[in-house]
């Protein structure tokens, strides 16, 4: 996966998480996911289709998700609260939406689908066609993970080859 695809997600996560949590965020590890993806906690999945297609999983450990949701809501939420899951989905929507906006302004055209809760324990592993990359962001409330598995479709490759 080319860095030009990843950088907008890093920038968007930095902007959204820093503003939302009102504290700076640090970029943690960036790794290729060789094995099948294993969910860490509360996870939201967003699918993309168009010049770039694939999926992004936004994943947060339960305790971290609760802390983040409580900060965003301005009130303490219990760990089991449905609003915690809603908050993670909305946060995913914002980070991914902002990244998509940047990519779109670079000339890629695609559609982002509404986030949905990802409840499966595992996800697809990298293939020769689609590599999965895991970004870790260290926030004041704990680690936030984004598992990104995207590929250019034929139309995008044709456009970039020009």
């Amino acid at each position, binding site marked *: 996966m080319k860095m030009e695809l990843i950088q907008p997600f890093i920038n968007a996560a930095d902007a*959204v998480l820093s*503003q*939302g*949590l*009102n504290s700076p965020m640090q970029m943690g590890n960036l790794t290729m996911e060789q094995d099948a993806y294993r969910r860490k906690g509360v996870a939201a999945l967003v699918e993309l289709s168009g010049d770039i297609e694939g999926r992004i999983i936004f994943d947060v450990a339960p305790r971290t998700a609760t802390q983040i*949701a*409580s*900060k*965003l*809501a*301005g009130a303490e939420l219990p760990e089991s609260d*449905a*609003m915690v899951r*809603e*908050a993670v*989905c*909305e*946060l995913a*929507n*914002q*980070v*991914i*939406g*902002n990244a*998509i*906006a*940047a990519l*779109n*302004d670079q000339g890629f*055209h695609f559609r*982002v*689908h*509404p986030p949905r809760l990802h409840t499966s324990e595992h996800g697809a592993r990298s293939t020769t066609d689609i590599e999965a990359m895991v970004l870790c962001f260290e926030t004041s409330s704990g680690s936030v993970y984004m598992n990104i598995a995207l590929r250019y479709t034929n139309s995008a490759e044709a456009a970039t080859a020009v």
Partner: protein
Amino acid sequence: MESERGGDMEQFAAIKRSKDGQAVRYLIVDDSVFARKNLARIVESFGGELAGEAGDGVSAISEYQRTKPDIVLMDITMPQMEGIEAAEKIVQQNPDARVVMVSSVGYQENIVAALQRGARHFVQKPVKPEVLYEVIKYVLGEDGVVAAATGAGA
């Protein structure tokens, strides 16, 4: 989620309807309950009142007809019917409707499409309350009036 500041919500000088001095009524449309609740919190800090909520474009149209709000805050990426199409239908049926798009997918193409199809303004998520406050004042124009300042955000 719209106010990503967490904790106490900043208070703004209330924006009232100039015709009767009543609170501005908002219809909030977003498929995320969390986003709707946070947007409601923000507009309440502007002295606004929640007229209704909807989780998709189709419900937004019926909720608009039912509640006749002063302002619609409309997400774009939603199931069933997306926000831009819903905004267009609302404005076709109600030419005076004031629809403000509130979305994270704020790329030029989307913004232009939304404005061409009837939206009055576009606000990027995560929403900064002070930005939305200025947009609301702008969109209301002479139909809105700012009451005496009550807080630091005035």
